[in-house]
């Protein structure tokens, strides 16, 4: 059992691609679920897709959510106001944060620790 990760993006392709990368770097031990685009598949954010992805990612040990921009962040925060208990929002860069979260989750870290790993990804400079 590991903490699950949810990737919320305005773009379905971006969410799916980020989830694919994070899943692989989580050594396929972590449920990483995308919630990308609006409910019709266009660009946007859907509270319903977020709720669905959280329930798929949740194996009972908690879920950490990452979001790309603007309405994706607000939708996640609004969802968490109503969600009981174990889901956390990590303020993190999307791709690096997702990889950090999945890697931490694969090592058996708890939800708070997974969220912290994602947040710390802001500090990993590239040059």
């Amino acid at each position, binding site marked *: 059992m590991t903490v699950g990760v949810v990737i919320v993006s305005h773009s379905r392709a971006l969410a799916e691609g980020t989830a694919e990368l994070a899943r692989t770097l989580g050594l396929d031990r972590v449920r990483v679920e995308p919630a990308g685009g*609006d*409910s019709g598949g266009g*660009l*946007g*954010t*859907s*509270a*319903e897709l977020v709720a669905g992805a959280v329930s798929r990612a949740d194996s009972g040990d908690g879920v950490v959510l990452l979001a790309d*921009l*603007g*309405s994706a962040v*607000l*939708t996640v*925060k*609004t969802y968490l*106001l109503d969600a009981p208990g174990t889901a956390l929002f990590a303020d993190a860069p999307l791709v690096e944060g997702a990889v950090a979260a999945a890697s931490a989750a694969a090592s058996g870290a708890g939800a708070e620790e997974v969220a912290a790993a994602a947040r710390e990804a802001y500090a990993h400079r590239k040059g």
Partner: protein
Amino acid sequence: MRESVRPDAEVCRAWVREAAARVAADRDRLTQLDSAIGDGDHGHNLDRGMRAALQAVEDLGETATAGEVLAAAGKALIAKTGGASGPLYGGALRAMGRSLDESGDLAAALRAGCDAVRKLGGAAVGDKTMVDALEPAVKAYEETCDLEVTADAATTGAESTMTLRARKGRASYLGERSVGHLDPGAASTALLIRALVTAARDVRA
């Protein structure tokens, strides 16, 4: 000073109806404003959200309270709008609904709605967002309890965003180039406040 209005479920239903009609009528104008500095979907998104909100309110039983009407509308806005305005307006309506069921007073409810928007979005007056229309309107109502003064304050506040530089959302990436455009969120806030004023006045008349 006038007394603060105590909106009942009928006023809240009328507000949602009036707001949905005004958003539908102004959909293209809002989208056009958003095309200048945002991602060009505000009118379209809010129209979709308000249609869903109206449907949710019409599906409620006749015995629903004012708070239940606004909670249903807010939930539908959050679920169906698809842009940042969904959680912001939806959260505001839900907070207003909770406040109305507690105190019944419009001034308290407006303040609760404004607080919800500010808390979720993190914007302050001057950031070129819906807060620039909402905060002055709420303040005007708290000070005067005059509905027309309140709607005028929202409009004036929305117009004030023309000269501001955006500090939130996509427009903030434009820096100085965001100056000279109205903020679409402030424009739709002025419209929603105008709808509330119309609903409160007409139901009372």
